[in-house]
């Protein structure tokens, strides 16, 4: 079970990111729990400077803009 966090204050781009992560996980056949982190202090704690950010099992893998689909699959299957 992979633990994925989507970091973002809650604008539209971050909302869609949650769905993109879930879709990628379903496609790759990986079991994931996706949580949204909207608290500014908590987001800042991950050391990113742009949103949406993606954290897989506690490690930041992406920040800012939509990630590539194949990268996303690579991160959640790694």
């Amino acid at each position, binding site marked *: 079970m992979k633990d994925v966090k989507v970091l973002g204050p809650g604008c539209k781009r971050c909302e869609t990111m949650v769905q993109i992560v879930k879709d990628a996980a379903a496609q790759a056949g990986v079991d994931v729990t996706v949580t949204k982190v909207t608290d500014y202090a908590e987001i800042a704690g991950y050391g990113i400077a742009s949103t949406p950010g993606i954290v897989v099992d506690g490690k930041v893998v992406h920040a*800012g803009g939509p990630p590539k689909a194949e990268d996303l699959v690579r991160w959640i299957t790694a």
Partner: protein
Amino acid sequence: MSAATQAKMVSAARPAAALGAVAAWAVLYSQLVPFSEWVVSLLPVERQSRLGEALAFFFYDAPKVLLLLTLVVFGMGIVRTWFSAERTRALLAGRREGVGNAMAAALGIVTPFCSCSAVPLFIGFVSAGVPLGVTFSFLIAAPMVNEVALGLLFALVGWRVALSYLAFGLMLAVVAGWVIGRLKLEAWLEPWVLRIHAGAADLPRTRPTLGERLVAGLDAVREIVGRVWYWVIGGIAAGALIHGYVPEDLLASIMGKEAWWSVPAAVIVGIPMYSNAAGIIPVVEALLGKGAALGTVLAFMMSVIALSLPEMIILRKVLSVKLIAVFVAVVGVGILAVGFLFNLLFA
């Protein structure tokens, strides 16, 4: 279609498609006047009437501005693939003030930035060791000096004004950020911001291919032009009405060069207003045609874009009210100076 297949298709058909697109763009751009005259001739209006004037103006300006905007946004979308907020932060962290402010302002133009990530960016910069004043230089330049504002100014008012706006906008961001840095206001941040010492996350570096950069340019067009086109249309419609119906030189007495007080008035009126550069510049252009002074309308425009109530409400989460007041005062004074300077330079 996934981004990967999209990228493959773009790279396969790239040279032909790019050439075709540029040719189509050039043909469209060269036909703007005949197009507008043709559209107006189809309508049941007298060409020489006020309504006819306004309509001809609208059907010339709207496609022209949208075409230029598409090109500029596409170009900037590609340029931005070389930059990221995290990389900009790494370049600015621990940088001396002065040089740091200048770099931050310049990077503010090319770094991808969306207003909803202003707060994470602010905290991310400050907690990773970017000086407060340098961070402000970035945050002032990023929304104010952008390709939408520059592209529209170029399309509607001319390259000299567009270049001057670029130069003075950067100068304003550098000086205002430097002043805020000198004031040493770190203690006026919200206390929880100062407690964050996350440093910078170690992100894997990616290098997009040329095809991916082109796709990013197209995405920028879809996202930005898709978001601002109705502002452009609305702004140009308002501009066309001013163009057709407001008498010549009506504004000369209230917004002209002689009326020095119109510059501060324009700044004060502009602060609570919130509009997109795309909506405000066509109006600016029409006001200029009716005798308003350039510095006055530019001060109005900068004030509307750089100092907005929604932005302050967002920043209130990380800045104390005192610090926001200093920010507004410093930037406001800077805009005033730019307004007066423009009125002197463009006589």
